[in-house]
């Protein structure tokens, strides 16, 4: 039995420890906001946090998450996360939406680390997240809007 804490809730899973965290979350915990797309950490659709740090769940063995706090899009509640989600709506970033959980997780993590990211910071933090609808221009703008909001709140 593997004991996991996901979005503050405990789950005991009877799984091979090598099973990717992604499939534990999706198929066994039943949280489907975290998406499968490439399986090899090339697209970022499966981004979740382990103790607040973003990881690609598709290549992270579920055993790595034992004893850590897992956060998925369903449990994203930090001020940065909320600011990002609000900016995503304000700027209508979403198209097909399949990659957006991962985009939002990466963006919120960026704002957690860097209060006022430059374009280069955004490139670096977000280039692991693919969007086939190419919503990138709005993603960039929304991150800046979210940063402004957060800074407004904090100042």
């Amino acid at each position, binding site marked *: 039995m593997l004991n996991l804490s996901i979005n503050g809730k405990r789950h005991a899973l009877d799984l*091979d420890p090598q*099973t*990717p965290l992604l*499939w534990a979350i*999706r*198929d*066994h915990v*039943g*949280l*489907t*906001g*975290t*998406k*499968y*797309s*490439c*399986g*090899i950490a*090339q*697209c970022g*659709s499966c981004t979740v946090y382990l103790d607040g740090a973003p990881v690609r769940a598709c290549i992270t063995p579920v055993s790595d998450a034992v004893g850590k706090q897992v956060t*998925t*899009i*369903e449990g994203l509640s930090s001020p940065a996360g909320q600011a990002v*989600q609000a900016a*995503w*709506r304000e700027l*209508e*970033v*979403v*198209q*097909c*939406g*399949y*990659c*957006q*959980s991962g985009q*939002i997780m990466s963006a919120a993590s960026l704002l957690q680390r860097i209060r006022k990211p430059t374009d280069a910071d*955004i*490139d670096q933090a*977000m*280039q692991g*997240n*693919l*969007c*086939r*609808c*190419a*919503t*990138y*221009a*709005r*993603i*960039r703008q929304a991150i800046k809007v979210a940063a402004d909001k957060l800074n407004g709140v904090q100042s």
Partner: protein
Amino acid sequence: MKTDQIVNLSRRRFVAGSAVSLAGLTLGIIPTVAAEQREAGPGIAGQAPETAGDFSPNAFLRIDGDGIVTVISKHLEMGQGTYTGMATLVAEELDADWEKVRVEGAPADAGRYNNLFWGKAQGTGGSTAIANSWKQMRKAGAAARQMLVQAAAKEWQVEAGEIKVKSGVISHAPSGRQTGFGELAERAAEQPVPESVTLKDPKSFSLIGQRVPRKDSPEKINGQAIFTQDVKLPGMLTAVVLHPPRLGATVSKVDSKSALAVKGVREVIQIPSGVAVVADDFWQAKLGRDALSVSWDESKAFSKSSAQILDDYRQLAEKPGLVARTEGDGAAALASTDDAIEADYSVPFLSHSAMEPMNCVVRIDEAGCEVWNGEQMQTSDQYQIAGLLGLEPHQVHINMLYAGGSFGRRANPAADYLLETVHIAKALKPGTPLKMVWTREDDTHAGYYRPLYLHRMRAALNDQGEPHVWDQRIVGQSILKGTPFESVMVKDGVDMTSVEGAANLPYEIKHIQVDLHSPELPVPVLWWRAVGSTHTAFAVECFIDELAVKAGQDPLAYRRKLLRNHARHLGVLNLAAEKAGWGEPMGRNRGQGIAVHESFNSYVAQVVEVSVRRNVISVDRVVIAVDCGVAVNPDVVVAQMEGGMGFGLSATLLSELTFRQGRVEQSNFTDYRILRIDQMPEVEVHIVASAEAPTGVGEPATPVIAPAVANAVFAATGKRLRQLPLRLG
């Protein structure tokens, strides 16, 4: 309007799946269908609880007792904003409160939900969703509004003409009475359906033309939106399929012992497209497939390489093809010129590579087959599945879910991934729900690509430097041959999708010839966002640029002259050029490029700025002008221009699917590369104000970027690149 017949199916016996096909508005009561599908699973149409008092004036909307207006979208939401568009059209004429409008995907039913441009077939594609629904959805909203007003007039004993409706509030000023939709829903359902309706004067639109919030955004940013990948049904199993290593290879021997030993693996099933491993969950199925041992008979397998295919096409281009268009003396005019300009343009196979790899959920039992899927062509998929199972098409129930991108891939006349799922499910115990999932590698290898194309361009210029002869020979596989679309869209052997964007060349030229070779290959091909224009626009818009250079004229001025009789082309061309600052000095290693193209009845021009450093092309800025008639939601139009351009930019700079001795060389995003955020240019979009009926926006931005960038690279470097993806050095 006179030709429309509006029928309230609540007054007839409505039989689920019965074909009720009318020219315009189809009124019908939803509950019969909804009730039986309600228990089916997530994401289904008619999921909301219904009470006897609910008002369902027609097939396209329902008003509940609490005043919630549910718009039933006959079109798939795959990112293009169609749910929001359908809801906007209905809500505008209904004068609904946008906050109280929600959207559901329609069940598959061509009788009620056919695409009006596609005869009796339901489907989403060819950038037609808004265009074909423009009046239909508005009429649905207007009919429902009229029924609400009639109900209020009766209830209040006042003149209907004195009643006003605004933002979901029905009011009668003289008596000071007012109420919401919910309170009147039940009474409204009893009113006679109007025989005709009057649509609003565009001057009084309050939602159309406004940036109203998308209906799918909230659930797509909090992880709650349900895609096919997310469906979970009680007792559901998951299958992963091992496909042949090369097209045309067949299974010669399967050793399933090790696969069956993997925990959770239930069955190994041989199907026509390969060998399926069925397990309790995805990861177990995937491990089971890894453990599977299959030997293949590759004696009849495809063995060509992309380079060889292109060589074959060059040979073929030596000979005349089937004529798609001829003007003046056509190709014969070239014989009398001794200074013809000639160039070959080519594009590779491309994979759609939607972020959600292909997948499908089905359950087969005595009653029929139920499907959960985000898909573009419900009616043809119903026929395909019914054919395989020996059912009637109406016994195939399709629940419409969101698609995580598609770009044409989920619109396959051959229904490939759906039939694959059905083949597996029919080998299972009846009633077992099955989810079939492709990995990214499966999705890249499984075919149905944008075909590889060659264009041989030839022209001759007159004394003024203008072309007086234009000859374009196109070589590439037909998408439609052998499909049900062949009879309609292949004319005299010419596949319209192979020559669109070329045969309708807008430039004023005396002698024109466009001809086509459609060689056959076993590589399965399919429409890919913007279809024929993805290659024709590249060849045409680069070659016209070459001619301008040859004539020593400015590429914008040159186009303007040759488009003098095409106002809408000129409109976008001039707008983009003006907003971009065409002709401003760019500095060293930088250049501007321009292109204009009509597709799906919309007109798009793009001006790009590129920088070239150490043979690396970076696209810095793109200015887009679009004329798509009325912009129902200008922000969605802008988003489609940005995204459509970005989708095309992947193919311009990065993506290429190649065969080497019959094997696809790419497998995942490491080698089938698509655009990342650091490669996305700054982009601005300008919409031409228009009162024309709306036309497509999902696709028309895609084909314009490749020629615009190639032309800019020429301006920056003097090098003319004629092959996609563009590579220097």
